[in-house]
């Protein structure tokens, strides 16, 4: 009896293990095939356009008769908007995290955190129109020359969207800092502010940095807001008041147009896609590396 029972458990275990393994395999396969497709199309793109031109040309105009294939303007547009977004989200997100974990009463924290997380749940198309119809007209009062489509409003709204990535994850990290360290800090005669910024934040720093990098990855890949509000004009500029285009917005532009399958215009999507992929991949590795490095230090 007992033997059969044990045998059944062993068989069941085996089955479950196989099933879970299969699920894992499926995700790996999906990722892998995405990379393969990206690579295949990108390789045939780079057959026609040399990599050096792709990386150094300062113009991007594959859809015009005078074709240029420099990714830099798209890269710059992406960085500009992400930069604005981080400049909004980092100070706000971190202040919120510190406030919630070090100052706010726990009841308040429990109620406010899910509300904050709602910010990330708003559909991005709503954010896009919010940027276009609310933020831009408002900013135009401050900067009269600002165009209707611009990097600034898209960046600001994207910043608002990614606040919860930073605030929520950083707050988790801060809250998980042992109370014995807070006691030590207060016991030494630290003020609340000193305790927060000299002890708790540094202790949680690797997780905080990881949250910021996650937020950056999210901003880099964000598509809808920039497509709607930023203008779709590839431009090599750091001026946030004029229209720009990001890598993602370009991909949308081409995908939703009617470029012939297999043409060079079509293949630019994959070239742009792989550029974005490599970039986010590097960023994720950076976050992993920072985590590891800080972990060793602590």
């Amino acid at each position, binding site marked *: 009896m007992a033997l059969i029972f044990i045998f059944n458990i062993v068989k069941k275990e085996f089955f479950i293990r196989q099933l879970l393994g299969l699920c894992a395999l499926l995700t790996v396969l999906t990722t892998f095939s995405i990379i393969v497709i990206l690579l295949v199309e990108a390789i045939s793109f780079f057959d026609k356009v040399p990599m050096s031109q792709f990386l150094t040309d300062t113009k991007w105009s594959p859809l015009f008769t005078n074709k240029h294939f420099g990714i830099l303007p798209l890269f710059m547009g992406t960085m500009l908007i992400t930069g604005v977004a981080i400049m909004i989200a980092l100070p706000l997100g971190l202040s919120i995290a510190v406030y919630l974990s070090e100052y706010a009463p726990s009841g308040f924290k429990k109620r406010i955190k899910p509300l904050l997380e709602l910010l990330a749940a708003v559909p991005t198309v709503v954010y896009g129109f919010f940027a276009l119809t609310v933020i831009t007209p408002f900013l135009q009062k401050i900067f009269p020359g600002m165009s209707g489509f611009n990097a600034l409003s898209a960046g600001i709204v994207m910043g608002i969207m990614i606040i919860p990535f930073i605030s929520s994850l950083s707050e988790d990290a801060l809250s998980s800092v042992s109370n*014995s360290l807070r*006691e030590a800090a*207060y*016991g*030494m*005669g630290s003020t609340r502010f000193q305790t927060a910024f*000299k002890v708790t934040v*540094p202790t949680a720093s690797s997780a905080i940095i990881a949250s910021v990098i996650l937020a950056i990855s999210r901003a880099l890949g964000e598509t809808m807001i920039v497509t709607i509000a930023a203008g779709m004009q590839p431009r090599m500029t750091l001026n946030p008041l004029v229209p720009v285009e990001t890598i993602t917005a370009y991909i949308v532009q081409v995908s939703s147009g009617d470029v012939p399958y297999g043409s060079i215009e079509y293949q630019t999507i994959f070239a742009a896609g792989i550029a974005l992929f490599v970039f986010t991949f590097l960023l994720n590795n950076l976050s992993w590396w920072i985590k590891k490095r800080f972990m060793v*230090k602590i």
Partner: protein
Amino acid sequence: MVSSTFAMEINLMKRIPDSLETQKPQQKIALSVYDVTAWYGDFAALHNISMSIKENQITSLIGPSGCGKSTFLRLFNRMNDFISDFRVSGTVKLNGKNIYSKAVDVVQLRKDVGMVFQKPNPFPKSIFENVAYGLRIQGINNKSVLEEKVEQALKQADLWNDVKDILKRSALALSGGQQQRVCIARCLAVEPKVILMDEPTSALDPISTARIEVLLNELKDRYTIVIVTHNMQQAARISQQTAFFYIGDLIEFSDTEKLFTNPEEERTQNYVTGRFG
């Protein structure tokens, strides 16, 4: 430093140890507690406690678990203030000043009254930065001043020889006993008047414990030390006076030798001989 009115107040207290041979002649009172009752919500964790703690000696607090030793110890640096429903009545004085009066700057108080905790809790920073922490938050950032004070504190904490070549290494890489001595050094670096210790050796092995006991014996010449301990041999070995608490009451407070060998109260007798608790 003891004002005349203050001296009168001491006379009112319940248990004032008679002048005994072991006592230094003109020993001052560092901390005095008068009629203190402390509550967590409706629960009174300490009842009408009065006692005075002398300067430059070690005072032990003993008693069974939950009798209020930590609550009592944490009165002196107002660490209980962080507990939202905590209340206290009566007076607690440090060098004659009521530390619960409205005018008191709690942050400053905690610089005068340092604390070492049960579990070693160094910051996840280098050994140097741990010891320099208290100086840095006072705005001292001059490198040579910091180096001098850190070295001095580490020497006082009997740790300098262990760590003088690895000051930049994380304090968390040290052994438990060394970590606890980092915490002691961190506390000494700001030159507090009083050091509170809540079971500082209960998480340590016997050798580290012995080293810290030797250390405490040296430190008492410069600091007033109040220590909570579950280890009665430890209390007997290191302290000059001992207070026995039982369910929120101060049962007996006298010279350590007397308390352990010839206590007035039966409950003390039972506890120190291991009959309960």
